[in-house]
């Protein structure tokens, strides 16, 4: 087992004016772990994810990310230094693939672009890697020159995942990655995410309001309510033996199949 967590969040609080969106959040995430964050809309889970992604400034607290041989406090550094220190070690998969893709360029370019930003220039290599990744996310590589604008929602989501993983990040943040998809497409995507996370030893921080998705993907779970973590544990512990009143309510509200 590796001896340092990839991510350690300590005392993270985020306020919007008077309103507290996240309060005193503490957790660790280790390489290869999928950590789910569940809770209702407005519980602060997406805000927490966006703080870690650097899309929002943290009011108080530390976000310690083990990048290369160094530990960077993402809450304390600016965007430029963040890019330099963290680089492509951190990916973000949006609920809506259109927020994470460039719809005006081809599928291949969507995958190659992060590599080009990282300095890779050889056209043949870029194209080969893009084709490989299309195949890995189960998109026909002959669609490499097609515009993702015309892809189905499930294909767009898989393309977004490829775009995020092509630079071999160590941590990927996912915000409701199966949110807008049909159930059959969801199942396929869940399996893909699980497989990629296991194969690549990725750490994933997964925000979802779907307890079924959490059960299938997450090793551990944190339950958020009104900006606080009210319960945490192994996924099956939290779902099968919930201790807190709120978690019991959440779990008992799910329709059983």
């Amino acid at each position: 087992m590796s001896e340092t967590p990839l991510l350690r969040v300590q005392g993270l609080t985020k306020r919007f004016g008077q309103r507290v969106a996240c309060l005193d959040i503490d957790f660790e995430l280790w390489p290869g772990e999928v950590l789910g964050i569940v809770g209702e809309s407005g519980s602060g889970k997406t805000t927490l994810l966006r703080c870690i992604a650097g899309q929002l400034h943290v009011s108080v607290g530390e976000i310690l990310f083990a990048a290369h041989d160094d530990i960077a406090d993402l809450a304390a550094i600016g965007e430029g230094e963040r890019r330099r220190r963290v680089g492509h070690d951190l990916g973000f998969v949006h609920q809506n693939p259109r927020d994470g893709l460039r719809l005006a360029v081809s599928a291949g370019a969507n995958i190659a672009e992060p590599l080009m930003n990282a300095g890779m220039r050889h056209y043949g290599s870029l194209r080969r890697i893009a084709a490989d990744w299309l195949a890995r996310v189960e998109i026909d590589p002959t669609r490499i020159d097609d515009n993702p604008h015309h892809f189905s929602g499930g294909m767009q989501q898989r393309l977004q995942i490829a775009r995020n993983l092509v630079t071999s990040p160590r941590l990927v943040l996912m915000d409701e990655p199966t949110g807008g998809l049909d159930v059959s497409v969801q199942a396929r995507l869940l399996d893909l995410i699980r497989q990629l996370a296991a194969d690549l030893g990725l750490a994933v921080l997964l925000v979802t309001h779907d307890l079924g998705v959490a059960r299938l993907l997450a090793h551990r779970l944190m339950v958020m309510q009104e900006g606080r973590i009210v319960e945490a544990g192994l996924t099956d512990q939290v779902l099968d033996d919930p201790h807190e009143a709120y978690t019991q309510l959440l779990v008992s509200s799910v329709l059983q199949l």
Partner: protein
Amino acid sequence: MTPPLAIETRGLVKGFILHAQDHLRLPVLAGIDLQVAAGECLLLDGPSGAGKSTLMRTLYGNYRPDRGQILLRHDGAMVDLVSASPRLALELRRWTIGYISQFLHVIPRVPALEIVAQPLMALGTDPEAARMRAGILLERLALPQRLWPLPPATFSGGEQQRVNIARGLIARHPILLVDEPTAALDAENGARVMALLQEARMAGAAIVAICHDPLARQALATRHFNLPSRNIAA
């Protein structure tokens, strides 16, 4: 030389609090002390509602006890599951303790062979080797080969249970918790499952089982542990 202990519980207490029912308290396990050595199969006995399943799930860390210790032999030393970090608990489950539940809970769309091979791949075994071992187990459980590439969602109860048992045995955990392993099986398939569990035990696995089928009980048990019926009104 007596075989080493694989499981030891000390003063295990577990109850439930139902917040939606005016914080109703349901005590279930009141101070369980049990020991299981390598190569033993301990059968949990007791009337329905005595807490057999609760004890099983608690031993796996699925239910969190209120008090007590669950010491498991892991990597040569006894480790307390109750106070283990989530990370250590996950490692214990990968390497040391397996749980064969009555029902299969897996991601839809994944082929049966992959479902069986996964726990072995999670230990770093080469995927091809893991699939090969999965095939051997499925063959011994007489699951027709034409089913291997299919997701088990549409399988019969007995077919699903055999997939589940193969998945539970493939990683050769030194501690196995087995809940009604033959419930959905006919006599012939039940015997196949018993043979595999017996082999695991002879190879040194410590097994804790819940089982109602009289034949299977006789074949499996080396010792019994009796859970007293409890007074629900407590």
